[in-house]
Each structure stands twice: as C-alpha cells, then as structure tokens.
C-alpha cells in the first residue's frame, strides 16, 4: 500500500480511529494486524519471509542474552546470516550470478547456474537492517531481548516505517509500544501536518520532476547537452522530495499515534561538505552504517590509510545496499572517494581559501561550498539513476562535451506532453522549496506555524489540501523510488 494512494487515505484514518478507541493492552495486536494488511497489499506471500526472519531474530535475541562466551557470538552470526542470506537470495543472487557468468566466459569455464526469476520483496533492505540492529544491540548489551513476540514483530513490521524506513533502533522504538499514547490534539495535528507536507513533496514536486527525468534517463542515448544537465539537476530534487516526502509521511503517521521516529533528512542540499551531506541525508541508514560497519572497522581512530579504507568500504557497502548493480557500487565508491579526498585536501583547500581572501566573506564562502557539494552530489546521482554504467558514462560525456547543443525540450520530451511552461513551473517549485529550507535554518517554521491562531492554521490546511489535489501530478499513486531497495 502506498502512502499516496486512495487506499491509504481510507486505511490510515480507520487504523488510527480504532487504535485510540480500543484499550491500551489490545493496541499492539491491532497495529500488528494493520501492519500485516499494509504489507500484504504488495505481494501477500512475501509476508512469510518477514515471519521467518522475525522468528529467527526473536529467538536469536533471547539466546544471545541468555548465552555466555563465544556462544553469544554464534547466535548473533546466526541472525546476521539469516538476514544477509535473505538479502543475498532475493536481492543480490542475480547480480552475483551474472558477474560470475561473465568471469566464467572470460576464462572459458563451464557455467550453467540460471538466473532466479523472482521479485524483490518490498522494503527487504529496510526491515532486515532494522532487525539486525536489534540483535547487534542485544549482543552489545545495550538492549534487553524482547520477550513479547508480538511486540518484537511490531518493531520489525510497524507499518509507517516498514517498507522504506526510517531504519529504527530498538532502544528508540520498542519501549514506545509499551507506553500508552492517548489522543493529544497538538501531537495529532502536528503529525497530520507533517504527513500533508510529505505528500505535497511527493505528488506536487517529485512526481512533476519525474515527468522530465524519466523520459531522459530511460532513453539517455537520444539526449545530450542541456537536456541531460536539467534532467540530472531535476533528479537530485526528485529523489530528495520523493524520499524525504515519504519519510515525512512515515514520521507523521507514527506521530499521530504517539510514536516518535527518528529524523531521516535535515535539509541535505544546504550542506557545505560531503561529510555534512551524509549527516543530513538518509540519516537512519548513514548512522546504521556508521554504528555497525564504520566504527567496528576502526572508524577514524586508526592510521590514515586504515581510516580511508574504513570510509571507502563503508560507502561501498552503502552503495551496494541501494541496489544490485554496478551503478550503485560506483555511486557508493564515488561518495567514499569524495570523503577521502576532502580529508586529504583539507589543508590545501584552507590555504587556497585564505590566499584568495574568501575567509573575509564567510557568506560567499558558504554559498560556494554549498554549490560545490551540490555539484559533486549531482554528479554521483548520475550513476545512481542511470540504468547501466554505459548509460552513465554516455550521460557524463554528452553532458560535458557537447554543452553547446542547447535543447531543453527535445522531440521525445515534447512527445511525452512536456511543455516549457511545465519546466518553468518545476524550476519555480524547486526554488520555492530551497527558499523554504533556507528559511527553515533560521526559523522553526513548524513551531511558528503551530503558534498561529486557528483562523490562520485551518485555512492554510485547506490551501495545502487544494494544492495537493490541484497541483499534484496524478491521482495514480506512483511508487516511491526507495521502495525498490
């Protein structure tokens, strides 16, 4: 079930109404049932995968806590192997198999392992990572094992964040299922407001930008110059509005029912460096990799070369997490390279900045840093969005080598019904979004709005609803990009 579908528009109020109407002791069961229904709206049979992993990790948690010595580690390994194994089969098997076949062909080895004709279970990468964070935290002694199977199942399956995060930690979420959440007017309205804003980002901005991006990136060889540049810039904002919009809706939906989920985005395109970008983009995943991969590898408390290695491996894995394709691996590697380069060149960059006198103009310096970070990020997005490495290289070469071929709307885009007016409208939306985000760095807009009298707030809600309805791209619920991961 998609958050931007009519079905969810019916599902969510029903779930919330019943949730507040029934006694506290029955609420976990209701939420679990609702979460099962929510997940089964995609491919019903795949819920068995979830049940299987829940059973494994629930048992592993208890065994880890009760065991001692090396046995604790074995039970953790069992849990991790089950989760990573599931990912390996459903997400990475065909990728690894195809690459093995290529290697076999090069060396003329016989190779007959067929590809699996299976669909990736929705949100698999999210809920397996959330489940692994549980067993790891139990192993580390930071979380008590959960004895209530229903509550543990709800921790993995809680519908607002089941299919695309935020990837929660047990310390933050599990105890909330035991707490009683009564109807709180301010909290509920804040949650609904957040959901509405997330929906606006998705259907008004992201889906509109997608109408330009998709035809270009789906057929990159037919495009060049300005078209590719604009499509790449638009994609940067499309994926942001798509995923941040989803996260806002997830956090808002949980907030309505009294649950506090972690923040997932914090104005990432206003970052002044790549490391700052990664502390603001998909925060729940970045912090997962930081806590469970980067720091265990040694983090930055190591010799420089080892430190760079740790960073690179972490980003490489992060890229692979996003998809079983070399484009994602390159995307991750590129971000690792950016980060290592920024560390290595920090001294030199500081000297250059001082030499040209930029230190005296901190605002201009900040703007330049934001623009540089954004440019590097957009360059990496090319690999993220392209269908193959060959396509990505084509886009890069034809974007930079032939910038003189200015054609904002080639025939293929016109054939899709895209007009200059729509492109201008898209640009206006992006500019307005960035202005809103910039103001948000100075003023807590949500808090300021909540303080306004009802005669300001409710007409504003009306305007927002009408904007979503009238300016949204389609009533056809389009899937969120991150659902594929």
């Amino acid at each position, binding site marked *: 079930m998609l958050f931007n579908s009519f079905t969810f528009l019916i599902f969510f109020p029903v779930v919330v109404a019943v949730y507040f109407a029934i006694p506290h002791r029955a609420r976990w069961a209701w939420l679990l049932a609702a979460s099962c229904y929510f997940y089964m709206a995609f491919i019903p049979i795949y819920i068995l995968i979830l049940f299987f992993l829940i059973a494994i990790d629930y048992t592993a948690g208890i065994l880890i806590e009760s065991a001692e010595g090396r046995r604790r580690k074995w039970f953790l390994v069992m849990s991790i192997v089950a989760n990573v194994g599931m990912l390996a089969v459903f997400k990475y098997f065909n990728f690894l198999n195809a690459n093995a076949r290529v290697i076999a062909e090069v060396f003329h080895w016989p190779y007959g392992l067929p590809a699996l004709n299976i669909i990736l279970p929705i949100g698999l990468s999210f809920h397996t990572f959330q489940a692994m964070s549980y067993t790891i935290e139990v192993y580390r002694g930071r979380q008590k094992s959960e004895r209530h199977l229903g509550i543990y199942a709800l921790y993995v399956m809680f519908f607002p964040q089941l299919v695309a995060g935020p990837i929660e930690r047990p310390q933050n979420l599990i105890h909330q299922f035991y707490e009683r959440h009564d109807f709180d007017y301010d909290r509920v309205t804040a949650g609904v407001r957040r959901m509405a804003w997330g929906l606006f980002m998705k259907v008004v901005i992201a889906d509109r930008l997608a109408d330009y991006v998709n035809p270009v990136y789906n057929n990159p060889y037919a495009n060049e110059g300005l078209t590719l540049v604009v499509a790449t810039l638009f994609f940067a904002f499309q994926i942001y509005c798509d995923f941040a919009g989803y996260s806002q809706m997830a956090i808002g939906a949980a907030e309505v029912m009294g649950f506090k989920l972690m923040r997932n985005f914090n104005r990432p395109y206003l970052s002044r460096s790549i490391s700052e970008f990664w502390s603001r983009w998909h925060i729940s995943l970045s912090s997962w990799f930081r806590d469970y991969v980067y720091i265990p590898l040694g983090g930055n408390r190591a010799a420089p070369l080892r430190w760079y290695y740790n960073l690179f491996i972490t980003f490489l894995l992060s890229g692979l997490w996003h998809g079983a394709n070399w484009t994602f691996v390159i995307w991750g590697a590129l971000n690792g390279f950016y980060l290592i380069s920024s560390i290595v060149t920090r001294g030199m960059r500081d000297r250059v900045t001082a030499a040209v006198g930029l230190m005296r103009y901190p605002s201009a310096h900040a703007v330049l840093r934001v623009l540089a970070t954004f440019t590097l990020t957009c360059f990496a997005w090319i690999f993220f969005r392209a269908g193959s490495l060959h396509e990505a290289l084509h886009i890069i070469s034809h974007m930079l080598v032939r910038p003189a071929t200015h054609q904002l709307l080639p025939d293929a885009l016109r054939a899709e019904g895209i007009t200059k007016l729509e492109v201008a409208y898209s640009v206006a939306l992006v500019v307005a979004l960035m202005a809103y985000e910039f103001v948000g760095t100075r003023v807590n807009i949500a808090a300021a709005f909540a303080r306004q009298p009802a005669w300001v707030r409710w007409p504003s809600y009306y305007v927002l*609803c009408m904007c979503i309805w009238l300016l949204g791209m389609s009533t056809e619920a389009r899937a969120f990009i991150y659902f594929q991961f």
Partner: protein
Amino acid sequence: MTKSHTARGFLVKCALLGLAVVLTGVAISQYDTRIGDDNYLAAVLEKDHLIRTTPSPKIILVGGSNLAFGIDSRMMQDSLGLRVVNMGLYAKLGLRYMLAQVKPYINRGDIVLIVPEYDQFYGNFSEGDQTLNTALLYAPADRIRDFVKSYSVIDVVLRPRVESVRRSFFQATASAFGVKDKYFPPDTNPVYNRHSFNQFGDVVSHLGKKSMNPDSIYVKELPPAKEFNNRTLNELNEIGDAARERGAHAYFLFPSYIDRSYSINTSQIAWLNDRLSRRMNVPILGSPADFVYPSNWFFDTRFHLNALGRGPRTVKTIDILRAARTADRW
C-alpha cells in the same frame, strides 16, 4: 484542554475541512471541460455503442490506435463475411481497459482479435495512464459496473472525477486570465477527433492527408525484459478463457510496426514473442515480422499506418484469419 482540542473537536474540524475541499471540487467541476467535446477519446461512446449493437457472430478488434489507423474493417467484413467492430482507440488507455471494455460482449461465434502495441506489455503501460481517467469519465453510466469488476470503485468512480476537477481548474484559471486558447486550444485536430471514425470504428480522417516525413517518425527502444508486466499476461489468459467458455475464438496478432523501430528492438520482440508463446493461452497468429512495414507506409507514429500501409496490413490479417478459420473450423 479546550473543548475544540478533544478528539471529537478534531474530527469535527477535519470533517469541515474535508467538506470545504469536496465542495470546492464540486464547484470547480461545474466548469465541465467535456461539454460539447469533440475529443478523440470521446469516441469511446461510439465504440461502446458499436459493440453493444452489433449482433454476433462478429469480429472484435481489440487494441490501441494501431488498429484504429491501420485496419480497413469494410474490406475485412467483405472478405470474411463477418461483421467487424474495430475497438482500437489509444494504446495508453491500457490493455486492461480494452479487455474490460469488450469482455461482457463476447458471444458465441465471435472472433476476438487482440492486437496490442508492444509497449503495453511493460511496466504500468497495460494499466493505462491519465487518459484512462478521461475515457472512464466518458463511459456510459451503465458500463461503470463492468469496469469496476476489472478495476475498483476508487479507480473507476473516484479517481476520474478527482482528475477531472484538476483539469477543470486549470482550464477555468486559464479562461479567467484570457489565455485558455493558448494553453488549451480548441480540439480542431483534423485527424484526432471524435468524428474521425467510420461506422466500423476505423479512423479514416488520415487517409487523404500527407504523412509525416518518414525519417521524423519517433522510434524508441522497448523497455528491458525485467519490466515485463505479468499481469498483462493474466488478463490475456482470462479473456482467452472467457472466449472459450462462451463458444468464441480469441487470437493474438502483433501490431503494425515501423521497420526502423523493429530493427532496434528485434531481440526484445523475439523475447516477447517467445514469452507469449509459452505462457499465453490465446493462440498467436503470424509473427512480429509479418507486420513490419517500411517507414513511408506510416502516417505519424511507429504504429499508425497510412493509406499505403493500411490495405496490405488488412489483407495480411485477412489471410491469417482465413488460415485460422480453416484450422479451427469456425
């Protein structure tokens, strides 16, 4: 806690907000963009009338605009001695819609010839795009139930109306600013309009007109195999079963296709042919290559034949159907 800050107060406010939004929508929808519409898609009304009133046995042509532009139904009727109903209109309505549109009217002795465009097998294309909402708005009220069986109440009743309000809003706004003719020009397209069809449902408005420069006709690669939509297959199999149960015959044919597009999609089309041959219960007549024609036989898209191509394609289809008639004894 103030009285309005209770759950009841919240519900009342939400209900009022919802009511305000819905009433605004109703008000906007009064600016009905369909009134007096000569839109090409409005021809669903005539097509619907055609399939309801044409007695069986008949040949029902199901597909997108490749059929509308590229079949001479009169020639087919005269050659095969069966009445012909050409339901072909627009590929982006989706194969699901096209099949739902004809399914209730398949009767004993009918021949259902399914000829979808290649794109209809990939991604969400078979589900239809936003034009489907327009077509569903035009659908006669008593057909709504048929479509609900294939879709849902939300898809058939709610979504088109919500979409229509959006369109009305933009047209009304443009009208208020005096720029309606610029952004929503009147539907005066001489080829694509409601009156472009003959009594069989064939588009005939393009026959005397100059075709587009063959080199300018847009061609593109088909999506990769991984985007194949299995749901389309299920729907085709369902129509195959329905035809068998009712004593009718369903066949599948590949669409007319421009040679330039075929040459860049040969492997994808071979894969598709293989996939359909193995998994579809509707027999395939002929091969994709049977319907590949030179660029100068096309009117304006890679699927739309002009007067040069329409005749040979119809003859080929008739020959194939004759062979099927002999084999299946109908």
